[in-house]
């Protein structure tokens, strides 16, 4: 059992939870994730580690309530327990001295990008960050990202904050203005990652994405998370989750992510119906 010690709503349906998990906190590194199972009937699902405090023995996760599992997780109160949390899983990000790096966070993906930006900044890189969302109210971790970035750019699809357009448009503009990035990290929805990969490709800038494929065990057993990278089948859980953006078959990834859309909808509806009927 893993107790929730703190909880905050960062934006509508986007929540942060701080969980007591000393063993995971001890080992956590940027780029890694955990697998959770909220309750006895719950799914196993992955969430990227956003932050950790080794002395307090806590880890922080940020998630968008989208399906039954994240909605259930969002419903757990402070002082209550999550049934299972295992990790840290996946390979850590390669934190080195690259020079000028660009960290692009799309939507809730900013949460995954944040610890990487922080670590890259700590070792002495010059960090330029681009944080984007659909609309101003959905921008998360702006202050945190500002603290670990030399420059921060904001974009919204509707133009309600910062540049009007996608984060990839900002990346394109910056490159056009002469920002000579040695490395780009793009983390967010698959379409956003693909768009950024296409922006950096003509310039041959090394670009890393963190793939959010469907996982069950998350530790190299099921193969649900398999992705085509450079024509080879790789497992996001043990070979990733980070891969060379220019080699990932995003079309396949997107299709694989949608495999259970109708089931997810059904499960969520059923759970919400149950919840409302027991609240009455």
């Amino acid at each position, binding site marked *: 059992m893993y107790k929730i010690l703190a909880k905050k709503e960062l934006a509508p349906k986007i929540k942060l939870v701080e969980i007591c998990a000393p063993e995971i906190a001890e080992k956590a590194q940027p780029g890694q994730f955990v697998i959770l199972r909220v309750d006895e009937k719950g799914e196993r699902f992955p969430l990227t580690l956003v932050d950790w405090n080794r002395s307090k023995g806590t880890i922080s996760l940020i998630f968008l309530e989208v399906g039954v599992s994240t909605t259930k997780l969002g419903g757990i109160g402070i002082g209550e327990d999550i049934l299972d949390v295992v990790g840290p899983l996946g390979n850590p990000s390669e934190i080195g001295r690259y020079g000028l790096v660009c960290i692009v966070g799309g939507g809730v993906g900013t949460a995954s990008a944040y610890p990487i930006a922080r670590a890259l900044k700590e070792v002495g890189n010059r960090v330029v960050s681009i944080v984007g969302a659909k609309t101003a109210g959905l921008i998360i971790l702006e202050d945190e990202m500002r603290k670990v970035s030399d420059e921060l750019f904001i974009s919204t699809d509707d133009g309600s904050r910062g540049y009007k357009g996608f984060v990839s448009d900002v990346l394109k503009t910056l490159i056009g203005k002469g920002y000579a990035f040695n490395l780009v990290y793009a983390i967010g929805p698959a379409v956003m990652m693909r768009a950024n990969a296409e922006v950096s490709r003509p310039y041959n800038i090394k670009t890393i994405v963190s793939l959010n494929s469907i996982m069950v*065990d998350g530790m*190299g057993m099921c193969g649900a998370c398999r992705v085509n990278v450079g024509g080879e089948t790789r497992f996001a859980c043990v070979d990733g989750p980070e891969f060379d953006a220019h080699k990932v078959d995003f079309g396949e990834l997107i299709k694989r992510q949608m495999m259970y859309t109708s089931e997810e909808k059904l499960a969520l509806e059923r759970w919400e119906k149950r919840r409302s009927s027991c609240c009455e």
Partner: protein
Amino acid sequence: MSEPKTKSKIRKEAVSMPKQKPEVRRRNFDEVALGYVEEQALAEADRCLQCPKPECIKGCPVEIDIPAFIKLIREKKFDESIRKIKEKNSLPAICGRVCPQEEQCQQFCVLGKAGDPVSIGRLERFVADWERQKGIDAPDKTQSTGKKVAVIGAGPAGLTAAADLAKFGHKVVVFEALHLPGGVLMYGIPEFRLPKSIVQAEVDYVKKLGVQIRTDCLVGRTYTIPELLGREFDAVFVGTGAGLPQFLGLPGENLGGVYSANEFLIRVNLMKAYAFPEYDTPIKIGRHVVVIGGGNVAMDSARSALRLGAEEVCIVYRRSREEMPARLEEIQNAEEEGIICKFLAAPTRFIGDEKGWVKQMECICMELGPPDESGRRRPVPVEGSEFIMDVDTVVVAIGRTPNPIIQRTTGGLEVTREGTIVADENGRASIEGVYAGGDIVTGEATVISAMGAGKKAARAIHEYLMKK
């Protein structure tokens, strides 16, 4: 006193095991084989010749004194009989169900020369079930040696090693990466062949021996082996099993609806996807399901698909029936349930619809050429014999390669090119104090061979600790 038996008085046929009828069981997840009732067990036990030099024991990887436990059944001393088994085997209800006895103890039974061998597995299952129904006795605790062993993986090898080490008096902590202990017994073998409540009960017995089990702990990530050895443990046993699923490497293999057998079975067994949406984990089963492969995992996948509501389930295997590695009993069970086996055919590509879902599979016919390095005749494609099958779901059950996490995070641990851990016959690996056994050493094999390896390693670890 009863007269010594002569062969001529012995029934040639084994007492058959009652089973659920095929037309009923093909749509439920309840156990297929129902087990002997007392009279049946007594009659079958009566067939045992009680050989003065029993051959059957040679075939048992965990060295059970088979004639002795059967004699005790005959005398209706079921309590003593199960205790006799548990001297050697802590998981008898599991072994009685899933061991391939026909290739092990029963293969050596003298009766097998002129009829059916004694049904040793069914008798083992009978006394194990008898004990569980009346309540399992707490085992005697051994005096503590003060030594501490970490066991990695709560599957057949790890549980056996843990139980034996605890019996030697060592403190044992088992680290399990998943949320439930049992390993393949929990996530792989389906409920209808091995009910999960039985696995749970046998795991509970191992706990009663004093073994502590820590779930949600992935060694290699949460802790590493050097850390375990450095902190509090005097030795480590690695029983992490077969991991990464193998794929065929064919076009269209990553289409929706193409599952590895591991994913398919984990969803169904461990996550209870058969009860979706009551349980949150979904599984997609179409009308036409194809399973690729010819082993027990292929049979388990096919029979699960049928129970999940598939209209037609077809196993596609590239060799012929004779070469199928699955247990004969399981092939027969599958066929009785209506599963179709398509022999001498292999897929060449998968064809998807516009949404990225598999809809067809192209196969090619095979013929058998001369034997290959496995000793089985090599399948050779017949040119121009391609054909198309309509499919909604495909399960690829062609084997697994070792999970790489421990190997990648344990410096100095010798590993083969295939990724298995190098260990000697007693499980000793290349780092002092590190032992390994089961599928992580041999590649994919059986539950009982993993248990045998766990047993041997436990003995070697005990010797090592006592000399240390």
